[in-house]
């Protein structure tokens, strides 16, 4: 089995595990599991698939994905959509919405991210990371102060858990991304714009 096939197999296995087995309802039984585990896992599955795509397909898609901009936009819109509480609720009460959520997070969330991340200009990569962090802090804060439940399917207590979870994950991510920036030792580039490949800019970082 080639490396790509292995990756695809692992991703498929993970996808089956989190959508078809009892793990699925376990993950969505709490708001924190839903938002902090299930959604990121679905994106991760998509990243796995994206990285195991056949080279000629990647080449074809790249023609439509200059500098990774179109691709990252698809990912951003997809994730933004599934941050709307209304649709999180709907995915619990409506099976077709649930399937749309699963497939879109894999196909439109993860795969374009995998195909675009390395191609993004480093400044754009940084901007996406910063915006991602501020989204975590903003949503976390909103969840903590909201007088009402955002989701009818979850308890207020659960929502506060999620708020803290987002803020703590945001802080942890900040540190994780900062340490290599300060202490990493990237090979200095010889010339021009050939920016070195940075360990902190692995595609799974976002």
């Amino acid at each position: 089995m080639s490396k790509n096939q292995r990756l695809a197999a692992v991703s498929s296995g993970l996808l089956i595990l989190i959508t078809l087995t009892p793990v699925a309802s376990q993950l969505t039984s709490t708001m924190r599991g839903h938002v902090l585990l299930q959604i990121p896992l679905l994106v991760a599955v998509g990243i796995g698939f994206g990285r195991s795509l056949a080279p000629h397909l990647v080449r074809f898609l790249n023609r439509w994905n200059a500098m990774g901009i179109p691709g990252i936009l698809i990912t951003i819109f997809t994730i933004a959509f599934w941050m709307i509480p209304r649709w999180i609720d709907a995915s619990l009460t409506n099976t077709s919405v649930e399937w749309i959520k699963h497939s879109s997070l894999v196909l439109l969330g993860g795969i374009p991210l995998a195909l675009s991340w390395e191609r993004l200009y480093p400044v754009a990569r940084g901007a996406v990371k910063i915006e991602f962090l501020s989204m975590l802090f903003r949503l976390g804060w909103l969840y903590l102060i909201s007088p009402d439940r955002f989701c009818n399917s979850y308890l207020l207590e659960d929502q506060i858990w999620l708020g803290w979870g987002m803020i703590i994950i945001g802080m942890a991510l900040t540190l994780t991304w900062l340490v290599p920036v300060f202490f990493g030792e990237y090979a200095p580039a010889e010339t021009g714009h050939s920016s070195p490949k940075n360990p902190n800019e692995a595609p799974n970082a976002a």
Partner: protein
Amino acid sequence: MNGSSTIATIVILAIGLSALTVGTNGWSTWTAEAARRQAVVERPRPLPAYQLLDSRGESLTLAQSERDLTVVDLIYTQCPTVCLAMGAQFRQLQSELATAGLLERVELLSVTFDPANDDQSTLSDYLRRFGAVEPHWRAARFQDNDELAASLTDLGVIVIPEQSMGFVHNAAYYLIENGRVIEIFDIEARTDLFEAIRARLAT
């Protein structure tokens, strides 16, 4: 950026922004609760003729009422928190309607979603506790658990059993006219509810 990617970017921006706009009803509806209320205003929802039994043993349905308007709240009598507030608000509403001379035309109806615990006498106690003036304010229970579940789904009510508190649910007042839910009010919005009733009955 090459031509095809520029086109792709524009198309993605258009679709993405449209999806977010449509998904939030034009940046206004972020939660399922808000969506449920807005949908009712736009398309009043007919209620099926499920049989309910009130605290005095009379049967009734949500689909039919002798009065012009019905205000429904969903309760369970052992509720320690939000239903207490709703009960107190209903009492206020009852006296406001009486003062305005509208009590005869409006039916106040508290429906339990916990028929296992709330029988006829418990519901009577509940009405007495909040000073309900019968028959203007009634309390009733579904006779059939499947019909209860169907109604809750139909109204978009989600009840989560919770250890210490009994149940947690998205509490609201449902304004019903001709067997259709025409508007849903927040439990803090009693004044708005009263104004809406007055406006409806004035025309």
